[in-house]
Every structure is written in C-alpha cells, then in structure tokens.
C-alpha cells in the first residue's frame, strides 16, 4: 500500500460504531414494501480505511450526509477525509463508489463526492464523477486489489 510505514494521520480520532438497525415487525411482514433509505446505504460504513485497521464509520469519514431517493433512483454520498491533505481521498471515494455499484440495483445513479471545503483539492470529485475513469481504474488490477482489500 502506498501509505507504507509512515502514516499520514498516525493517531486519528475514533468514533463509536452505531448499532445495527433494529428488526421491526413491518420488515418481517411479507406484504409491506420497504423502500431503500439512507440507513440502508450506510452499509458503506463497514469499508476499511486504506491506512488503519478501522472502518470509515469509526473514522467518521462517511457522515450523515447521504441522500437516497428510491423513486427517482438516485443516491448521493458525501465523505469527509480525516485530514485536509489526505492522499487517500480518491481511493476512499472509489471504494465507496464500487461498494455502492455492487450493492445497489443498476437503476440507481450514484454520486460520490468530498464534502465541500474539507479537502485541499477537489480534483477527486471530477475523477469520481467520470464513469470512464472509474471503469478504467477498475481494469487496473493493482488498484482493484487495493479497493477489494478495503471492501473485504
């Protein structure tokens, strides 16, 4: 991993993990239609940070800003790198994007971007929005390897 021995943010602030969604009666009821909601998209919280043995949730990288619209089939996720110069920002964004691509029905349009004002460069936003570049990145087997490690 490019982080190597020297970690950029050696001692991050750790946040508590939230508990799993409580099982409700309506979820067990066959006749009720459960829409896809914000909380469900929160599965991206379990993605591992490329640098630390911690999940994105524990580092508070994916905050509560997730907008899901089931009827219009759009998802929008903002994430906040732990430090403004985090070189991993693009990689984290790519991991989130891939996780969502694999976990959502293909009718959804997925938008992943850095929370405005939390990162020195917002170049990553352009890269993440570009379908071609995301597809190309996933053709690259060493990059795919790193992404898969974050997701496993």
């Amino acid at each position, binding site marked *: 991993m490019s982080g190597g021995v020297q970690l950029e943010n050696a001692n991050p602030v750790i946040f508590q993990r939230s508990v799993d969604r409580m099982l409700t009666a309506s979820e067990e009821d*066959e006749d009720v239609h459960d829409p896809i909601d914000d909380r469900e998209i929160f*599965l991206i919280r379990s993605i591992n940070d490329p640098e630390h043995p911690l999940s994105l949730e524990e580092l508070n990288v994916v905050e509560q800003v997730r907008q899901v619209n089931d009827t219009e089939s759009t998802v929008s996720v903002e994430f906040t790198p732990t430090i403004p110069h985090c070189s991993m920002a693009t990689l984290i964004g790519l991991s989130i994007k891939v996780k969502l691509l694999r*976990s959502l029905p293909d009718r959804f349009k997925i938008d992943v971007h850095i929370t405005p004002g939390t990162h020195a460069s917002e170049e990553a936003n352009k890269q993440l929005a570009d379908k071609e570049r995301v597809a190309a990145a996933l053709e690259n087997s060493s990059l*795919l390897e790193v992404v*898969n490690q974050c997701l496993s």
Partner: protein
Amino acid sequence: MAAESPLLLSLVEEFVSGLQDTKAKDTATGVKDGQFTVLQLVEALGQSLTSSQPHTRARGVQLLSEVLQDNYGALTEREVELLLAFYENRLKDHYVITPPVLRGLLALTKSRKLPPGSAVSMLRSVFQDVHVQSLMLAERACVYNMLINLMESREDELKGLGADFVFGFVQSMDGERDPRNLLLAFQIAGNIVLRGYSMGKFTEELFEVTSCYFPIDFSPPPNDPHGITKEELIQALRAVLTGTPKFAEFLLPLIIEKLDSDVQSAKLDSLQTLAASVGQYEHRDLAEFLEGLWSSLRREVFQTSSEKIEAAALTAVTALTSCLSRSVLNSDSEDSLSSFLVLVLRDCKHHLFEPDLKLVWPSAKLLQASCSASYRAAHSITSAVVPPLVEQYNSRTQCSDRRTLLEVAQRFIQSTASCQSVDHGEERVCLTADSLCSLVFSALSESNSSLQITAASVLTSLAQQPGLLLDSDIELAVDHLTRLLLTDEDERVSAAVVECAGALAEQHPAAFITKLIPTLKKEIESSALRSHHAVRQRCLSALAAVSIRASVVMESAPVLLDVLCSAHADPNCFSVDEVARTCLSLQRIAERVQDGEDTSRCFHDVVVPRLLSLALQAALQSDGSSDHRSPLVEEEVLSAMVPVISTACSRLKTFAEQTASRVVSLFLDGDVSFLPDNSFPLHVQLLQDSSWRQTQLVCLLMACVCSLPRSVALPQEERLLSELEELSCSCRHPLSYTSAAKCFAGLVNKKPQGASERQVFGVIKRVSSELDRPSSPLRTQAFTLLIWVAKALLLRYHPLFSALTDKLFSLLDDALLGPMAADSFSLLMSDSADVLNRGCHADLRIMYRQRFFSENSAKLVQGFNAAPQEKKANYLKALSNIVNKLPKQVQVSELPALLSLLLEALTCTDEGVQLSTLSCLQPVLINPPQVLIQQLEALVSRLLALIGSPAMKIRVASIRCVLALSCFPAHEVLPFRSRVLRALAPPLDDRKRLVRREAVQARAEWFLLGSPGGR
C-alpha cells in the same frame, strides 16, 4: 557351568557373523522362556566380545543389549553389577561400540536390582567417556532416558553427586536440536529444578542451556508422526524456567528483552512465562527489574496490537502485584509493593483525567489489573484514583465523557470485588462507597438514557458486594429505581433498571418490601383506570425481577394474583395480553426462587389454588353469559398459567405431592374443598365431555401432574389415565383433546418399565381402529393421541415405540392426514415446552433423536421411492423435519447419504419443505463434504431458482446458502461466478429489506471471489 546349547551358539553365530537382526528377538525369547540364561549367552558371546574387529565386538554387545532390553527384570543383583562393570568398561572402547553399550545401560537402569552406588558410577563414566551431542538422535534419547529412569529410582544417590550431576547434564544437552529429545531434556531439567537438586555454581549454566530455546519457535512438519506440538514444548520449557526463584536474576532480563520482539507469539509466551514465574518469587528477586518490567508491560497495554497480548499483559501485572503484596517485609528492606504502585499510578493515573480521554481504557485496565491482585494494592489504588475520578465526573458536562468515567468506576468496583478481605472489608467501604453512591445517584437523575443505563449497572455491581451500601443508600437507590420504572419510557433503561432492582433485592430485600412493592401495587391498580399499558408492563416485570428471596415473594405474588383476580372480575380493565404477562411474571418468580419451605408453601397453598379457583370460576361463570367473557377462559391466558403451575410443581418440591393429590381429586371427583372463594357447585365434572370451557382446564391438570418428580406417586392413576384417554379420543375442542393427549403421554412416560404396556396396547388398538375408518370424524383426535404417546415412548426408548412409528409412516400415504403426519415429525424431534422435557422430570434418554434417525431414515427413503408422485412431498417434508432437528455434527456426517433426496426436496413445490431443507443445508455448506462438491451444478441451479421465490423467508435462506457457497474451494465455484452475480442482481432491488441485506452481503463476497485482493 551349564552345557552350551547348540541352538544358542547358532543364534549367536547367525546374529554376529550372519548379520541377521531377527535372531536377536529369537535369542531374547529363548532367554525369557528359560531355554538358556544370560550367563550362558555371555559365555556363548565370548568369542565375539573379544574379537579384534570393533564391528564384531559391536555386534556382540548389541546382541547382549537387545536381549537385556527384554529381560532386565529377571536379572539378579550380582548379574547387574557384573554387566554394569562390563558396560562401563566398554564405553572406553571403539566408538562404534558406544551405541549398543548405551542401549544396554538404559536397559539396566530399568532394573530394580540396581546395586547401590552403581547409578553414580554409571553416570560418571557416561559423562566422562561419552560426548553426547556427537551421538545419533536415538542414542542421545538413550542417555536422556537413562537420566530420567535414574532420577525416578535413585534420586538420593544422584543428589549425592551434587553439582557435578548438573554439570554433566548441561554438557550432554548443550546443543540439542531435536524436539523429541528436547522434551526429554526439559523433563530432566524440570526435575532438577523442582526436586531440589543442588545446582551450585552451575545455576547460570543450566539456565543458559535451557533458556536459549526461549521463546520456542517450532512448527511441526506436516503429517508429523511424532505428534509433538509447539504448545507441549512451550509448557515443558516454561516449567523449567519458572521452576525456581534462583533463575529470577537471569529470567527477568531475558523476558524484558523478548518483550521488545516483534513476533506476536514471542511476546505472548514471554508474558505468560512472566505471570507463571512470579508465583514463586519474592520481592527481593523482583526488586531490581521492576522498573524495566513495568515499562514493557505498560507499552504492551498502551500500544496493544492484539487482545490476547493485552489480556496476557494484564494477567502478568496482576501476578506481579500479588507477588509483591505477598512477600514479608524485613525492617531494612523497602516496601517494594508501594514503590511499584507509585510507578503504576505515576504512569496511568493522569490519563484518566486528560481532557480527551484517549488513553483512559488502557490505563484503567492496568490500574484495575493491579487492583485485583490484593487488598493492599486495591486500597492504595482506589484511594488514589476514585476521589479524583468522582471530582472529574462532576466537572465534566458531556454525557459520553461522564459515561466513560462511570464505566471506569464500575470496573474498579468489580476488580476490588475479587480481593475482598474479611477483616479489612469495612475500611475500604468508607473510602469509596459514599462518593460512588452519590455519583450513581446523580447519573440516575440525568435525562440521558445511556448514562442512566450505565449508572444502573454500576449500582448493580455495588449491590453485589455485601456490606458496601448503607441502608440509607439503599432506600435512596430504591426511590430512584421506582421513579425510573414509573416514568422513563426508554425500553433499554427500564430493562437495565429492572435488572438492577433484581440484584439489589437479592441483597437487601427489606427496602423493596416496604417501598417498591407497595408503590408498584398502587401504580398497577390506579393505572388500570388510565390503562397505561407500558407502565403496567414494566411494573409486572419489575415485580418478577425483585422476587428472589422468600420474604419478597410473599409480598409480590399476592399483588400479581390480585391483578388476575380483578381481571376476572372486570374483563375491561386488563387486556388478555396483560393477563398473560402477569402469569409470565409469576412463572419467572417460580423459576428463580430458592426451593424452601416458605416459598414452596406460598406457591402450593396460595398461588396454585388461587389460579385454579380463578380459572374454574371463569369456566363456570362464562357458561351462562356470553357477552361478559372473562379473559381467564382465553387459550392464551390458560397456556400462560400452565408454566406457572408446572414450574411450581417441578421445582418447589416440598408440597408438590399434596397439590398433586388435591388437583387429581378436583378433576376426577369434583372435590373443590381446597380452593379459596369457595362458591362452586358441589359436583363439577371437568373431564366428562361437557362444555369446552370446562374440558379445556385439563391443561392445568397436565401442568400439575406431568411435572412432578418421578418419585412422587399419583393417587388413582389408572382411573385418571382411562378418563384422559376417553377425553382425548372423544372431545371436539382442540385445546382440550390436545392437552388430554399430552397429559396422558406425560404420565405414560413416567410409569416404570413394564407397568404401562396395558394402556399403550389399549391406545394403539383404539387409535388404529379409529384411523382405519377414513370416514370417522374423530381421526384428528386419534392422530393427536398417537403422536404424543409416540413421543413419550420415543424419549424413553420404549420397546413398543416401533409399533407406533410404523403406524406413523403408513399415515404419510394417507390422503387427509398425510401432510399432518409429515409435520408431526418435527413435534416428535423437538423439545416440547410444557410436557416431556427435562424440567418436567420426564424420562428422557440422551441422543434419542440420533437413534430415531438412524433407525428410521432407511424406511423413509424406501417409502419415498415407493410412494406415488403426489405423496412424495410428505416424505420429503418428514425427512427435512427430522434432519432439521438433529444436532449439527450429526447432520454434517449424515447428510451426504441423503443429499440426492435433499436436492430433490429443493425442487418440491411446498414452501415449508423448501425452507426447512435450506436451513438443513446451510450449516453443511460451511464445511462442505466431497459429495456435495460433485453435485455443485445441481445445487447451484436449484438455489438460484429459489432466489425468485415469492416467500421472503425462502429468498433470504437461499441467498444465505449462496453466500455460504462462496467459501467453497475457489477452483470449484469460480465457474459459477458470473452466473451467481447475475442471479443476485434482482434481489438487490427486492421489496423486502431483509432480502436486500442478504443479497448485498452475498454479492459482495462473490465479487471478491477470484478477483485480485479478494479471495
């Protein structure tokens, strides 16, 4: 001299010159059988032993040694002495002769006739003339075994050798590398250390020669025939190193050095060795290394990389502290415990109070580890830490910080609990309990729910230590708990409060009797008007939780009974659900109280009669008016009453017999004399086929008579059985005939072997004739009785059981009862909640399920193959019902044989069959047998087809199975990857969230399969 036998000469000749190794065995047998003596053998060997060729001499000695190995027991002392002298002399001979000589010596060390002094001389010559490490593996083992044998039999002589023995041993093991020999060598070293051999000036040498293997790094070769594990070596070496305080000055620096290692296993081993070693040490041994040890241990906890190491380090800290606390102080020595604790406090205390609370947990754990070691340590640490902790709590405003501090405080309470000392107990109490109590109470009055939960659990820990809380504290605590119970809406808070109340009430019942119970009683009664459901529920569960002591039960049980009473009187004031909950609370009380005279009397004289009386009143009264229906005739309420009575009869044995005979006479003869509020008609006939309201009370009879201990004899049992049989075969009300059948089965199950045949035959005859008439209206009843009796007999391995199974299997082909028969197999294989379980003292043999399965699976498969197409589903359902209930280990071993049938079951259209087959398959998929992998194509396509099932549970279960498939060997499942990924796409858009969740998980795993960085 005896004449030399020609046989012996030829044997010797063939062994020595002919090099035929088998002849040694023949010779040994000859000596054993008395054909010739050892002396004759030596004489016959004369020529070869004196030959000028070393190899011939070696062959000669080898023959002698091998014969001795089988015959050392028969040697006389004189012979042993001579042979020893010969062997010792031979050690100086040519090197090729050494191995057989050593083998001979080893044989002689086993002899019980070893002359005195010979051990010393033998060892001297071995140490002098043999360089052990230049020998082969087997010969080195020989030397070690000699030492072990001699240490067992001649300990005194060896100790007489003094330090020379240790030196000799050190020289012989120095450089040993084979794990098998190392185990032997460690055993010898352990003996030296533990049995008090004098080590003299060779202490350090012995330490060096053994400690060079520390920490052990050994991975046995695959398919190792010797079966030596790393763990064995570690334990053996640890026994040596930690065996004596004399090693302390060498071992402790070594441990400090090894703790710096990067290898996890080395760290773990060092920490465990440290913890084991200090058990023997005194503070003098530790003094100079304390600082070094502490800084290493602290680092392991602060920068921990794994929980195992952290736990080991904390154990080591506890061991260290308890060693220091144990040692007796001299007037001139400094108090090493206090100096160590000063170190601990210096490094840990301030972290508790840092503003960001980052290293709180590691520091608290370290402090608590030393706290739990001894009273003295606990005293100094708590007095230094707890007051500032309280202060800190008060100065914080954020709830999460406060909660952390409370949790830390709770850990302190728990860790001091382990070192409670009788004579000093009270002193510590004054120090901390006051301030902690005020802390807890202030937290309980906060509005934050997680803070309240933590505070309740701190209060629980405080309460669990006797003598820690003052009476005034308890009263205050009870007030707080009552307030929270009545006002707080958060479910988690009330659960924590109820648990805490239970713990407090166990230690301090008085405060609960005088305060909590009256308040709750008032609340239940008054809220009845406002119909505040949640509050009432909490009150009910709190009443159950606090009733552990007999004195509390006497107060709380009547409150609950009053609830039932008023529910009966006015059906509008309590819902059926609440009445059932009240019964549940009574049941929980019966489950938790101690069996004693008071509690037993309370249940058998008050609770059970009142329950019966209320149920009977309801049954009789509702007969008349239909609009005003008491909740006590509802099936839900009656089924909740059953466990109350059955728990009372099975657990509280003192008066159970009396209750049983009263209940029997109530049901058989209508004897109502023991019931309170007696206004019943004189002759109620509960078991005759009258109104369903009355016959259904038979479930209460079942609760009572089926849960008695087997030693209690029932009056009028025969009559009872025949009336029950009649009722179960003729009644039309489901609860009544099922309960009667259960009751009959429960009684048959407990009858002594041989006493029940008549009834069982009667039942089989009656049931069969009923079932054989397809038009009979009472077939369901007959079937119910059949299945329950079958279960009763199956549990106790009754010989008549097979007759019933055959009947059951034949019913699978029945047009009407077939599906029911298939379902009934699950009843047969599972534990029933109210009768025929261990709690009811049923005669229940172990592994009856496996037995049933192994006896009947073949019949089932046969029946399946013979059955017409439309009946096959019944067989599949029966099979999956049986397999589902088998223990997992049995499932995994038995399934391969049934695999084709199960795959067939997946295509069966019945959803119940699909679901239970999927749940059978899933555990097997985690550890797939070879057969399954061969059928992968069939399995995958069937599972993928089920993903589109209309039933949610089946979709979830099949996706789980698909997830399990991803863990199969990659080369087997990789061909299916794209197919599975395609099939998993639609469920991502499923209408049910539970299905989507499984699909997301499974799809993520399958994506990782065969992809770089994945699996």
